[in-house]
């Protein structure tokens, strides 16, 4: 973990309201893993005050660069989206834990919704490189929200739209339910996105008796585990009632989360 200054290398829109930003990564900073995140100090002025958290969506060892995919939602991300190549970012990273590599024989089912795409994409590419055949399922409202993504080598990317304007007509969990049992036999579910989707992925995994991990999101202040602000509630039977998303997560076994 390091607090460093980074140069913006490029920024582009990848779907309606979604940006991808690439920036330099310092030589002396550890390699971020899929699932880990960073926080960016938006500006010197105290509005908005807090740093903004984003998941890493890519890391390039040769180029010493990393990327995030983000949605323009409010003041902070608006300012971020107006920043130009060459401008300086104040970054604190890598933070949090990461997804666990599945066992060799398992088929990774990676489910992303909205801003959950970043960490899922990073992990899908890692798994693809490592010789797995990941299936990345990305669900959204309609085709305007579908990003332009280079294909995976061994695995595949499946888009799902609520209105059927592109790809599978239905939610990403509807799609999972259509997979045949041979694909599900040794599957491992990984999810990141809106809470409703995460819960549905968890329920799906439980019903098929397959393991499942989920990357959570909560409002953060410190991002390093000091303030106890970003907690999620854990299921009954766990040793603790709450866990910190920034330090104990953001990735959790979905069965330890209390889904309400």
């Amino acid at each position: 973990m390091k607090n460093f200054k980074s140069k913006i290398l490029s920024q582009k829109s990848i779907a309606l309201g979604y940006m991808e930003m690439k920036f330099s990564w310092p030589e002396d900073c550890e390699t971020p893993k899929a699932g880990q995140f960073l926080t960016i100090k938006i500006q010197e002025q105290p509005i908005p005050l807090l740093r903004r958290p984003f998941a890493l969506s890519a890391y390039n060892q040769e180029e010493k660069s990393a990327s995030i995919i983000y949605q323009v939602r409010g003041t902070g991300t608006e300012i971020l989206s107006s920043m130009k190549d060459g401008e300086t970012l104040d970054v604190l990273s890598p933070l949090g834990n990461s997804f666990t590599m599945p066992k060799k024989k398992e088929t990774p089912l990676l489910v992303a919704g909205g801003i959950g795409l970043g960490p899922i994409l990073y992990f899908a590419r890692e798994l693809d490189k490592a010789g797995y055949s990941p299936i990345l399922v990305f669900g959204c409202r309609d085709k305007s929200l579908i990003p332009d993504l280079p294909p995976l080598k061994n695995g595949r990317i499946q888009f799902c739209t609520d209105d059927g304007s592109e790809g599978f007509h239905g939610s990403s969990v509807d799609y999972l339910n259509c997979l045949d049992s041979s694909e599900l036999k040794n599957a491992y579910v990984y999810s990141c996105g809106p809470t409703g989707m995460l819960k549905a992925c968890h329920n799906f995994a439980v019903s098929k008796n397959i393991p499942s991990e989920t990357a959570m999101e909560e409002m953060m202040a410190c991002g390093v585990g000091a303030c106890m602000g970003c907690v999620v509630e854990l299921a009954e039977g766990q040793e603790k009632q709450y866990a910190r998303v920034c330090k104990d997560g953001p990735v959790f076994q979905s069965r330890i989360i209390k889904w309400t």
Partner: protein
Amino acid sequence: MDLSIKIKNKTLPNPVGVASGTFGYGEEYAPLTDLSKLGAIYTKAVTVEPRPGNPLPRLVETPAGMINSIGLANVGTKGFLEEKIPFLKTLSCPVILNVAGSLEEDYAEVIRRVDFQDAIWGYEVNISCPNVKHGGLAFGTDPVQVERLTSTLRKLTDKPLIMKLTPNVTDITAIARAAEAGGADAVACINTVMGMVVDIHKRKPAIPAGTGGLSGPAIKPVGIAAVYRVSKAVNIPVIGLGGIMNADDAVEYLLAGASALQIGTANFIDPDTSGKVLAGIKKYMREAGFTKISDFHGYF
């Protein structure tokens, strides 16, 4: 240049500490700032029993500030001694234990159980947490209770005893005088200011508890006013905090009467704020020809 501050029989090496609840128990920030340069670490509050804390969400951002409703989530006294003290023992800066409770006896119990630890430099008694139902704030708003609690705790320890005051009162100077009368060695002002945000889309408070504690730049003028008034009302050192983001803010507090300072919310935005504030105070002192912290005082 003498930056040290004497409180009771002990000395803080410099005026810039980090505030309770914003720095954990030190360990989390070790990779990000030089802990040995801190004037003091004020730990997250410790209560007798572990506390899970309040339901979520616990945080909401406000204009130039944030509201928290953590609810004193902490590992409890046993957990503190087992899990946190080993790391704190390795530090060269003073470690000040922030103590919280619901009853007078709870505060006393924490101090009784940890006082033998040499790693603890002194205590900051949190009589001002707005985020728990019982005790906390209830103590800090009544001068009679403040004096009684202070004198009870005074008998239990020879270490410095700092009472941390709430701004959520009619007259903070009356509370400060009560703490002094009870035997406090210093007072710290301020804890968070009660605040609330309403989520207009969900048509309910943004945090389940309704109100929470406002911190950050938004409360700096409240903190400065408290320090200004309290430092004129008592003869013990006043530790100032609330919205300090940089050296200029810190100098404002020192000129208003603070002898030492704490950096809170600013740690979240820049984990090395304390280092930068200390460097800035030194620069200001050099330029103003000040040789010691007390040179700041008495300008108005």
